[in-house]
C-alpha cells in the first residue's frame, strides 16, 4: 500500500533524538541552540503576551502556561535519553531529576541548589543564579512584581504534573546575600544582584501518597 505523495523531508518519527545528549561532538545540531536566538524569541513571546494581558498576574499565568507544554515534553525526552527504563515515584527523587537532568538538558548545567523549606513541609526551592529567561530582560517600574522566569516555573510545573506530582510553582527574585556570588557570569553583562528562586509547593495528596510509600 504505497501512497503517492511522499514529502521530501524526513518524517519526524524517523529523525534521531540525539541520544548522546552532551558535548560528544555529534554532528546533529539538535543539542545546542544559540542563546541569542532564544533571547530574541523569548522577548517576542513576552511582548506578545504583554499586549494581551490585563495585569501582571495574568501575564505571569500566560508565561507559565506557555512553559507547561514544554515541561511535559521535556520530561518524556529526558527520560527517554537517559536510557534506563525507570520512572520516579518519590518526591525527592523527582526533584533531583528536575534540578539536575532537566536543567542540564535545557540550560546546559545543573540547577545551583535544591532546598527544602523549614516552615512548610510541602515547599521546596530550586535556585538558579543566572536563568536565561530573565538575564536579558529588564522589568520596568510599573510591572515591579513581574518575574520573567514564570516561563521556567511553567516548565517545572509541567514536568512535575506529567509525572503525577501536581504542584504549584512560582518564580521569585531574591537578593543575593553578601558572600554569595554568581559563578557563571554571562560575558559582557554587569553582574546580577539577585538570584531566581523557584518555589515548588506540592498538593496535599502528593505528600500523603509519598508518606504512604515511605512505609
Amino acid at each position, binding site marked *: 500500500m504505497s501512497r503517492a505523495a511522499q514529502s521530501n523531508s524526513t*518524517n*519526524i*518519527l524517523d*529523525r534521531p*533524538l540525539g541520544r548522546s545528549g552532551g558535548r560528544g561532538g555529534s554532528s546533529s545540531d539538535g543539542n545546542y541552540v544559540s542563546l541569542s536566538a532564544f533571547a530574541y524569541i523569548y522577548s517576542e513571546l513576552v511582548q506578545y503576551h504583554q499586549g494581551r494581558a490585563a495585569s501582571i498576574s495574568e501575564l505571569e499565568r500566560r508565561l507559565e502556561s506557555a512553559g507547561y*507544554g514544554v515541561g*511535559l*515534553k521535556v*520530561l*518524556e*525526552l*529526558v*527520560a*527517554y535519553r537517559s536510557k534506563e*527504563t*525507570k*520512572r*520516579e*515515584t518519590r518526591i525527592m527523587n523527582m526533584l533531583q531529576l528536575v534540578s539536575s537532568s532537566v536543567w542540564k538538558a535545557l540550560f546546559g548545567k545543573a540547577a545551583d541548589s535544591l532546598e527544602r523549606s523549614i516552615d512548610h513541609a510541602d515547599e521546596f526551592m530550586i535556585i538558579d543564579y543566572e536563568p536565561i529567561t530573565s538575564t536579558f530582560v529588564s522589568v520596568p517600574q510599573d510591572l515591579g512584581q513581574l518575574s520573567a522566569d514564570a516561563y521556567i516555573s511553567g516548565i517545572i510545573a509541567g514536568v512535575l504534573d*506529567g*509525572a*503525577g506530582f501536581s504542584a504549584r510553582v512560582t518564580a521569585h527574585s531574591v537578593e543575593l546575600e553578601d558572600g554569595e556570588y554568581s559563578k557563571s557570569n554571562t560575558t559582557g553583562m554587569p553582574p546580577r544582584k539577585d538570584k531566581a528562586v523557584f518555589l515548588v509547593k506540592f498538593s496535599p495528596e502528593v505528600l500523603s*501518597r509519598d508518606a504512604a*510509600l515511605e512505609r
Partner: protein
Amino acid sequence: MSTPILFVIVGKNEPLFEAEIDTTSGAAGGNDLSTRQNYFVLHSSLDLVEKSSWTTNNMYLRVVDKVNHQQVSTFLTAGNVKFMLLHGGKGEEVVKNFFNEVYGYYVKLSMNPFYKYDTPISSKSFDTRVRAAARAYLS
C-alpha cells in the same frame, strides 16, 4: 497465533491510540464480539496498573492481568502514559522490545510542538509504524 493482538495507549482520561493487529491475515478484522470483549479486558486491568504504578520504579510492568488464555502487559512512560498490550502469551523479551520501539516513536511524536500531551494520536505515520513494529516483533 490466531488470537488478534490489541494494543492501546491510554492517557489520564481516555485512550489515545488503538490498534488491533491480526498477525495471521495482517488486516484489522475479526468479529465484533471478540473485539469488544478484548477492549473490556484491557480496560478492566487499568486498576491494577494504577495500583502498581506507584510501587515500582520500572517502566515495564510485565504481565499485570491474566484472563482466560490472554495476558495483558503494560509499559508506563515517564509521563504516566500507559501502553497496554493484550496478547495470547508472547515471550517477555519480545513484548519488551516491541514496547521500547513504540516508546521511541511516542517520544518523537511528542516532540511535535503541535501535538498536545494527553490528546488522541491521529498521525497516520505513527499508526503505520506501530503496525509494522507489531508485525516485526509479535508474529
